[in-house]
C-alpha cells in the first residue's frame, strides 16, 4: 500500500460560472513512504492546486486522495488531522508570520495540535535546528528578521508539526543563489534524517534534479510524466514542448554526447558531470 495515492483527482474552479476553469484533470499517482518527489510544470499547470488538495485545503471536485489507504475526506470534520499529517509550506511563506516572537510563531502549528508545553518547546527547538535558525533569533519579532531568515522560520513552523509528508511550494523562490543552496540542502537533510516523504514544487530544474528521486511533470492540468528524475530529464524534446527545460548541465552533457563524446546519458548534477568527464579524459590519457 502506498503512503499517498490519488485516483481520478480533479479540481474545477468556479464550476458553472463563465470563468470555469479545470485546474487539475483526472490525476492518478502513488507516492511511497520516504520518497523525495519533485513536481514541475510551467505557471498555471495546476501544481499549486494539486498540493492544496493533497493536504485537504481544497476538496477535490472529483476523485479521491488516500493517505495510508484511507480517503482523507471520509470524515470531513477531522480534516484538520490530515493537515497535521501532510504539512504544506506555501509560496512565500514568510507572509504568514504573525506572532510576537519567532518561537511563538513556530509553535502555532504544534499548539493547534494540542500538544503540551514541553512537547511544543522540543518541537520548536528541533524545527529551528533543521532550518538552522539561531537560538537568539527565536526570541526576536519575526518582522525584524531578514528575508531568508523569515522564510526559514516559516518553514520551521510547518516542520514543527512533524508531518508524515512535507510539501513545499517553491520554497526557494526569491532567494539569492547561496540562500537557495543552503535551504535546499537543509530540506534534503531533513528528508534524510527523518526519513519523511517530501514533495517539492519547483520551477528550477536544477533543484529538482539534484534532490528528487522521482519527478512529476504537470502540463495543462494533466500529469504528463511521473518517473525517476533521470528518465524524465532524458526526454528533453517532450519537456521543451511543454515549455520546460532540462537542467543546464544535462543539456551540456547531451550536446557533448551529440558531438561524439562517449559520456553516459541522463547526467543531472554538475558533480556527476565532472566525474564523467574526468573519467573520459583519463581513459584518453589526457589527464
Amino acid at each position, binding site marked *: 500500500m502506498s503512503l499517498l495515492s490519488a485516483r481520478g483527482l480533479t479540481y474545477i474552479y468556479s464550476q458553472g460560472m*463563465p470563468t470555469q476553469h479545470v485546474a487539475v484533470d483526472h490525476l492518478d499517482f502513488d507516492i511511497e513512504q520516504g520518497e523525495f518527489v519533485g513536481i514541475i510544470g510551467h505557471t498555471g499547470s495546476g501544481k499549486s492546486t494539486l498540493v*492544496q488538495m493533497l*493536504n485537504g*485545503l481544497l476538496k477535490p471536485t472529483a476523485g479521491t486522495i488516500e493517505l495510508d489507504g484511507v480517503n482523507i475526506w471520509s470524515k470531513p470534520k477531522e480534516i*484538520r488531522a490530515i*493537515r*497535521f499529517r501532510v*504539512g*504544506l*509550506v*506555501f509560496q512565500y*511563506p514568510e*507572509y*504568514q*508570520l*504573525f506572532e510576537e516572537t519567532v518561537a511563538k510563531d513556530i509553535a*502555532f*502549528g504544534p499548539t*493547534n*495540535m494540542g500538544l503540551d508545553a514541553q512537547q511544543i518547546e522540543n518541537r520548536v527547538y528541533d524545527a529551528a535546528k533543521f532550518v538552522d535558525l539561531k537560538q537568539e533569533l527565536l526570541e526576536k519579532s519575526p*518582522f525584524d528578521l531578514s528575508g531568508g531568515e523569515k522564510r526559514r522560520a516559516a518553514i520551521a*513552523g*510547518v516542520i514543527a*508539526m512533524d508531518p508524515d509528508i512535507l510539501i513545499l511550494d517553491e520554497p526557494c523562490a526569491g532567494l539569492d543563489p547561496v540562500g537557495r543552496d543552503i535551504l535546499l540542502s537543509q530540506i534534503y537533510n531533513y528528508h534524510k534524517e527523518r526519513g519523511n516523504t517530501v514533495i517539492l514544487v519547483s520551477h528550477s530544474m536544477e533543484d529538482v534534479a539534484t534532490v528528487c528521486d522521482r519527478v512529476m511533470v504537470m502540463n495543462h492540468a494533466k500529469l504528463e510524466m511521473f518517473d525517476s528524475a533521470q528518465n524524465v530529464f532524458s526526454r528533453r524534446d517532450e519537456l521543451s514542448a511543454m515549455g520546460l527545460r532540462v537542467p543546464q548541465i544535462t543539456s551540456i552533457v547531451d550536446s557533448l554526447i551529440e558531438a561524439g563524446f562517449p559520456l553516459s546519458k541522463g547526467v543531472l548534477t554538475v558533480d556527476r558531470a565532472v566525474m564523467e568527464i574526468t573519467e573520459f579524459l583519463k581513459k584518453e590519457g589526457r589527464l
Partner: protein
Amino acid sequence: MRDVTLGQYFPCDSVLHRLDPRLKIVSLIAFIALTFCTFNYASLGIVCAMVIAAVLLSRVPFKMYLKSLKVIIIIVVITSLLNLFYGQGEPIFEWWIFKVTWAGIHNAVFVCVRIVCLILFSSVLTFTTSPNDLTDALERLMKPLTIFHIKVHEIAMMMTIALRFVPTLLEETDKIMAAQKARGADMESGSLISRVKALIPVLVPLFVSSFRRAYELAVAMECRCYQGGKGRTRMKQLKLMKRDYISMAVSLLAIAGVVLCNIFLLSVR
C-alpha cells in the same frame, strides 16, 4: 470568501454594459429617489417594470441578482413584518397583540418592493459597470465641486486604488487563511471569542502586507512622476452616444409616468 457579490463587476456584453457610466450613475440616483416616491400600485408597477427591464437587459445571470438579494433578505422580512403589524385603521385580522390592517398590508408590500428594487437597481449598476469606469464617472460628475477646493481627482484616485485592491486583498486573505489552516488554524468552529481570536493570525499578516503594498505602490507612482490631477489628460474620453440618449429618454418617460400616476391616481396610504 469570494462570495461577496454586492459591488462586483460581471463582465459580459450588453447594452447596459456599454452605456455611459455617468448616465448610469445619474439614472441610478434618479431611480432610487423615484422608488421612494411611489404612492400607489400603478407607479410602483412602473418602477418594477423598469427594474425588470434593466435586469433582463443587463444579461447578467439572474443567479447573481439572487445572491445580492440574499444578503438583505432578513432586513426585508423584518421591516415588512413590522410594517404589516403597525398599520393604522380598521383591523381585518387580529390575534393576541398582532393586528393586521389594509394599511399595514400596503405598507409591507411597498417597503418590501422598494428595498428589493433599490438593491436590484444598485446591483445592475455595479454588475454592468467596472469599478474603474465607476470612479472615472464619479470624478467627472463631481468636477464642479473643485470650485469649493475639494480635491476631486485625489478622492477619485483613492477610490480607484481602493477598488483596485479589493480583489487583491481578498486573494491575499484567501492565501493567508489557507496557509494558517495548513498549520491547523481552526476558523470554522468554536465560540464567538475563539473565532475572533482565530482571526489574529490572518489579520496581522494582512495588515503587514497592505502597508507593504501601499508603500510599493507609492514608490511606483512616484517613479512615473505622478503628481495628481493637474494637467492630466485621459485615455478614455467619455462621449454620449445614441444609445445613451435613448436610455435617457426612456428613463425620463418612466419618471414622468410615476409623477403622473401619483398626481392622477389615488394614493393607497
